[in-house]
């Protein structure tokens, strides 16, 4: 009986509360539920935009004739978009930037004091990350860099270009970009098949798969003034939700 009493009070006064099993198990359950919830509930768009690119980042093998034509004007990017792929042409318009555009091994172009600057990167192959206001990284190879109408090219086939400090931009255009998936809760307008189907969005879900075309962000100095992103190209399928939901999937 005495032995039984002793066994009932097994307690460690020096127990490490920080490494408590209870908290670890609760954290584990929380992490598992979090992953499964976002995977199966379709609520991922609540936190902002979700964009993914093709596995190989190569857009050349996308057959345009099998896809829908799409033109969308949506809210600006809320989260940082990171792309690593080939892009036919990147156009950047900045004003008042103080960054350096590094060219090749030693060269650089100082943007400070240039006022409004227009940068064209042709046949880009590398990484670019940006959101609705800033470009955070550009690193890759291009065939030609044009800054304020002065082209720079290399005797080699390509020239390395790099911008690795955050740089605010007015306008950004990616021509020939591929987005494997784009999901957002957004307002704006979406047109399919050259405007045969037009939808006005008011804070509604947009889910686009397999977009290939021209993506712009910011406000262009020329044409209609609009802040946000535009997608002009082709998609494999799309799903627009709200008070009612429309899904477009090409058959045959």
């Amino acid at each position, binding site marked *: 009986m005495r032995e039984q009493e002793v066994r009932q009070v097994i307690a460690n006064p020096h127990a*490490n509360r920080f490494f408590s099993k209870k908290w670890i198990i609760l954290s*584990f359950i929380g992490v598992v539920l979090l*992953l499964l919830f976002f995977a199966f509930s379709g609520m991922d768009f609540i936190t902002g935009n979700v964009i993914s690119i093709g596995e190989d980042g190569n857009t050349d093998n996308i057959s345009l004739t099998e896809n829908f034509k799409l033109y969308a004007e949506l809210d600006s990017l809320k989260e940082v978009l990171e792309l690593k792929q080939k892009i036919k042409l990147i156009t950047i318009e900045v004003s008042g930037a103080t960054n350096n555009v590094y060219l090749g091994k030693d060269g650089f172009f100082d943007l400070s004091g240039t006022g409004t600057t227009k940068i064209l990167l042709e046949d880009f192959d590398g990484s670019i990350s940006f959101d609705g206001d800033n470009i955070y990284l550009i690193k890759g190879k291009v065939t030609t860099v044009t800054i304020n109408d002065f082209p720079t090219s290399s005797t080699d086939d390509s020239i390395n270009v790099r911008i690795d400090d955050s740089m605010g931009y007015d306008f950004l255009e990616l021509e020939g970009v591929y987005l494997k998936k784009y999901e957002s809760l957004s307002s704006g307008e979406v047109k399919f098949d050259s405007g045969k189907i037009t939808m006005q969005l008011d804070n509604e879900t947009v889910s686009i798969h397999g977009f290939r075309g021209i993506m712009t962000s910011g406000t262009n100095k020329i044409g209609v003034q609009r802040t946000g992103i535009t997608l002009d190209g082709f998609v494999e399928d799309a799903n627009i939700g709200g008070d009612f939901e429309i899904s477009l999937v090409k058959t045959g």
Partner: protein
Amino acid sequence: MEEKRKRNIVRSSRKGYIPYYLMVVVVMLIILYIIRNDLPLNRNALIIAVAFMILILKLTEVHRITHYYELTPHMLLKSEGIFVHRLKKMSYGSMSQIHLNRSILDKIIGIGTIEIAQFSETVRTEIKNINKPEKVLYELAKRIKNMQE
């Protein structure tokens, strides 16, 4: 000249942390499943999951390094903590009973927990999840016997 004494330190086996390692494996498998099936993988949830996995692996190792038992010639020292270091000294003469507890799983993976009861305390001190527990039990029993004779 004092002869340098070889320290006889006992630490918990990594096998004792298998349940925590299994948690990491489960989280990794869920992430792989989500990626392979092209399901939405929330970035914030992914960051939390990766942080959880790193934290578990780090914590288990830190816990193992900072919690140890040392068999000195006259007493058993229990040491734990980095920032708040706690040291408990138990004379072999003050130990009344020692027990070896092993579940079926413990036997399969070759670990065990030794419980030490002292005359002066109603609570027991545990040397948890150690490799070759019989050997440590025998060594402790020998030292207790020598001290109490």
